[in-house]
């Protein structure tokens, strides 16, 4: 019996057993980043913003990848991936129709409910926009439930801008503020140059009621969180998505241990208040 049609394999009841999904589409977002659209089957794939899947390229390996699509569209399962290691490089070589192993969804989601009736600030760095996008979709799909919505996005250079068309579209909305900055640019770039933290002081939000979601390289998240705290946002209302080497995805193997927590099970989303003391400890 072919693996793909084995009913036991398709149920996904055991979190350690991958479900097989066919690659429905794949496209490049930037020079080194691509998005895969998987076919989750007739029932679709339910997830919450900020959760991730363990994606298995057969014969190569398994990696944790955040879901980057709209949680209100369960039939469209998207993962945005940066091709940097053997598994993600092999992923980019897959073609439509190829099967991939999927375990998940795993992890603590972005607490979008906590942000209800408050100003919401998203701070994204580089590919960190991908794990934030489902939360952005959720907030925009329920726009009336939130006060001011701001996205601050920093990337290395203009050519590294992720979801460029969508970011432009968001920028054109009257009910959302978008700030984009790049680390370096030539004169063709008309926007801001500098690190993403420089956008925080001028962003339109009331710090005392704001809930912030940050995703990007750890050092960038640390500085962004500090900039938000300096502006007056409470550390307990700043949420960030941590990244560690995850293997099992369910808190058994210990690969992703981060102090007292396992990032796969207790995270990846944590409050800045809870992780702040650990960010300065190099052994953690």
């Amino acid at each position, binding site marked *: 019996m072919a693996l793909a049609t084995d009913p036991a394999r398709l149920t996904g009841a055991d979190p350690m057993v991958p479900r097989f999904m066919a690659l429905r589409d794949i496209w490049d977002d930037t020079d*080194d980043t691509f998005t895969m659209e998987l076919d989750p089957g007739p029932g679709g794939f339910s997830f919450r913003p900020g959760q991730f899947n363990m994606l298995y390229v057969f014969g190569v390996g398994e990696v944790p990848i955040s879901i980057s699509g709209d949680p209100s569209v369960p039939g469209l399962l998207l993962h945005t991936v940066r091709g940097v290691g053997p598994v993600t490089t092999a992923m980019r070589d897959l073609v439509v129709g190829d099967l991939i192993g999927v375990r998940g969804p795993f992890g603590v989601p972005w607490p979008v409910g906590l942000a209800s009736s408050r100003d919401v600030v998203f701070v994204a*760095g580089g590919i960190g926009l991908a794990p934030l996008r489902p939360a952005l979709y959720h907030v925009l799909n329920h726009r009336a439930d939130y006060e001011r919505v701001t996205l601050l996005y920093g990337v290395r250079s203009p050519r590294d801008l992720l979801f460029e068309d969508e970011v432009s579209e968001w920028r054109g909305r009257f009910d959302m503020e978008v700030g984009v900055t790049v*680390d*370096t640019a*030539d*004169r063709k770039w008309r926007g801001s140059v*500098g690190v993403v933290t420089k956008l925080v002081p*001028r962003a339109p939000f009331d710090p005392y009621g704001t809930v912030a979601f940050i995703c*990007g390289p750890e*050092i960038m998240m640390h500085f962004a969180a500090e900039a938000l705290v300096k502006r007056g946002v409470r550390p307990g209302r700043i949420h960030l998505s941590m990244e560690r080497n995850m293997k099992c995805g369910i808190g058994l193997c210990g690969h992703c241990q981060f102090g007292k927590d396992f990032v796969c099970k207790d995270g990846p989303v944590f409050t800045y208040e809870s992780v702040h003391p650990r960010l300065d400890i190099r052994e953690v």
Partner: protein
Amino acid sequence: MLSPEEVLHEHPFFKGIKDQHLAFLVSVARPLHIEPNHFMFRQGGSADCFLVLYRGDMAIELHVGAKGARIIQTVGPGEVVGWSWMYPPHRWMYDGRALNVVDCLCLDGESVRNHMAEDHEFGFEILRRFGEVIVESLNRTRLQLLDVYGTGD
């Protein structure tokens, strides 16, 4: 159009500064209006003032030989531009180009320097505020140097 006094009073850089210090700064400020793509200062030029931006954005650029001009950073309303007026040889290190219509105040460097030497309390206030801007800028530059969004290869 805002008066120099209104601009300096509202500007975050001068928040909390004493009235007599503000009055002096107003006396050495002159308004500047710059059209898009015009330069406010050029690399190597005489740095005889610093700029207090309150409208528009400005690119700080460095000419990198055959690669042309690279934008090092952009600055906007609420920020101040220029430290070269403080230390010899008082020459701009970069180009400053308006990205859009820019309105700012140009504060005379020599007058401010002399007043800092005469009134140490005023001098301390100015140095403390510029120190904060310089530290902030240094931290941001360090982050840029880390290339945190790179692949690490």
